[in-house]
């Protein structure tokens, strides 16, 4: 079964771990030992048992009542399976949030409807990052509805404000869904709530289920294989890589970028000789003639369909640091030095472009990168795997970016 990976986003204290713990218990997806251990830990900490403790494994997480690093939990509903990636909601832990959310197929953003909580900068920042990471579908779960008497007006206000923001940062209307609920009072979590007659949609879990049934993945036929390196085997040297789109076939003509035209002589998939390899499969090949030089980071394309290798990129970047002295990008197995020029800044809380040309920590900018080497790439919209990179300052993580 393919498991739908969902990242659970939102500001700290808006109830992510609690929601997840409740869902795990309600769908009987967690072992009794895990619940017992969480209860015991609550006792040791002299706190009342809280479903979120089931997930928070580090001593520090329970003591400080927040998730520090990504947690994963799997649940089953009807004939679908979900893996929740609970990411930290705390600003300082954004690199853990990015790591966790990068594996998601879609997002659930939890936002508290409680009068003194509501939409925060962090809420919007998370949505901005979700978009940058390539997530196209998001459920906005408006939580703690019990604290405002299940009032439709507040729900509509939040929906309206966030819809406008989501549209501005590039989400399409069909990819957004709003669900009012209360994790604490168990309303509209699994079963449809009787307390919100004005709400016509399904419960949170039902909405997730409908997303799972209509993933809306774009099918891509262009052949792209990212090469990983050379490999020694008992039957001689092979070139290894991963098919990221299209189908690779034994005997076909291909273009290696940068490089020339070759014919695929032998193809191995899962350790065996094969006639074809599809998206997601790791391959080992031999070519009709020698491929010289470094293999890693080169891209194999179909005949007559070569992508460009360039030392200059335009990109949208999110920064996790205040300044960057030695920009480097890590890109399909390559680590390349870069000169970075900021064209303008992008506000992650309004989506607006500002003329100032500086790095803002936890902010974004449109940049131009001049690379120390020519590397093959495509725009993120065209082929996500060939249009995204991790930004480093020397040896330190500094952000992520997507190619325009």
């Amino acid at each position, binding site marked *: 079964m*393919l498991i739908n990976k969902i990242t659970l986003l939102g500001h700290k204290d808006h109830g992510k771990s609690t929601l997840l713990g409740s869902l795990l218990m309600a769908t009987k997806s967690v072992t009794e030992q*895990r619940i017992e251990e969480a209860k015991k830990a609550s006792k040791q900490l002299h706190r009342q048992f809280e479903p979120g403790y089931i997930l928070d494994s580090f001593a520090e997480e329970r003591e400080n009542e927040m998730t520090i690093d990504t*947690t994963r939990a799997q649940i089953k509903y009807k004939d679908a399976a979900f893996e929740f990636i609970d990411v930290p909601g705390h600003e300082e832990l954004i690199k853990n949030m990015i790591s966790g959310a990068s594996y998601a197929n879609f997002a659930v953003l939890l936002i508290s409807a409680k009068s003194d909580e509501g939409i925060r900068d962090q809420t919007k920042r998370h949505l901005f990052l979700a978009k940058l990471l390539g997530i196209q579908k998001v459920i906005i779960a408006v939580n703690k509805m019990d604290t405002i008497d299940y009032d439709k007006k507040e729900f509509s206000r939040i929906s309206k404000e966030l819809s406008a923001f989501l549209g501005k940062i590039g989400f399409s209307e069909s990819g957004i869904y709003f669900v009012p609920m209360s994790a604490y009072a168990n309303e509209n979590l699994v079963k449809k709530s009787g307390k919100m007659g004005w709400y016509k949609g399904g419960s949170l879990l039902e909405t997730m289920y409908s997303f799972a049934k209509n993933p809306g993945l774009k099918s891509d036929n262009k052949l792209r294989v990212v090469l990983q390196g050379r*490999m020694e085997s008992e039957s001689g040297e092979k070139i290894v890589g991963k098919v990221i789109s299209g189908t690779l076939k034994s005997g076909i003509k291909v273009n290696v970028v940068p490089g020339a035209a070759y014919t695929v002589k032998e193809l191995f998939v899962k*350790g065996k000789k094969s006639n074809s390899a599809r998206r997601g499969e790791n391959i*080992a090949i031999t070519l009709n003639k020698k491929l010289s030089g470094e293999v890693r980071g080169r891209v194999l394309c179909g005949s007559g369909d070569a992508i460009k290798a360039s030392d200059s990129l335009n990109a949208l970047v999110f920064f996790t640091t205040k300044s960057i002295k030695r920009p480097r990008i890590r890109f399909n*197995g390559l680590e390349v030095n870069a000169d970075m020029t900021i064209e303008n800044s992008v506000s992650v809380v309004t989506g607006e472009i500002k003329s100032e040309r500086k790095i803002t920590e936890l902010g974004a900018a449109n940049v131009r990168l001049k690379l120390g080497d020519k590397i093959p790439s495509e725009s993120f919209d065209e082929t996500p*795997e060939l249009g995204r990179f991790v930004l480093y300052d020397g040896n330190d993580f500094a952000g992520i970016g997507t190619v325009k």
Partner: protein
Amino acid sequence: MIKQDLNELEERSIFIMREAKSKFKNVAALWSMGKDSTTMLALARKAFLGKVPFPVIHIDNSIDFPETYAFREYLTKKWNLDLIVVKSEIKPEMSGFSCCGANKTVALKKLMKERGFDALIVSIRRDEHGIRAKERYVSPRDVNFKWDYKNQRAELWDDYASKSDIKGHVRVHPLLDWNELSVWEYIKKEKIPINPLYYSRNGNRYRSLGCTHCSSPHKSNAKNINDIINELETTRSEERAGREQDKEKSYVMAKLRSLGYM
């Protein structure tokens, strides 16, 4: 337990092992002769077209089960493995933290230093323990084997740790996404040889295997792989319930792992 997509899991494991081999000079793997690390070897044979291209290490405290030793000899020969056996000291009163921590880790440290391994493949899985769920596919350890779990590196878009990110070595976790059920389904599908202790004898079987001091069997009549798969599809108890080091204290595992335990 949720049925996962075996094809997707297999491909990710192959990718991770090839990345490790391509980015690090001196790769080795831990092999306990248990189901997970044996599955990892089967995956390595696929990734590298028939041969496991790195040494496999057994940290032997001399108190593993006789069946485990017999299985080690059998598979080493069958798959032509480059086996390294490291003896670690054991005292009768040792168990859990002192045993797995001090004992196994000290022996491993010594070996890693002697042989200069810079990447160690370890077959842990996220669903085994809450702490293991926090791991990265490629996870740096410092020169003292410490895991800085409070400050883990960002890991996304197939960008795993490389030489420039580490001061000591990396742990490579190709099986991180697999759950227990998937491992057994894969063993069945691929006909992977397995240690007989996992099958029920006299109404008991081992679900998780350590040494004779810290593993205890659970009640089960699962006599073959199909029985085990059926048992796992319905169970609500934890895989490592029979393992000492996990239950002594809620945080023992966190402590063990931060000090270099697998």
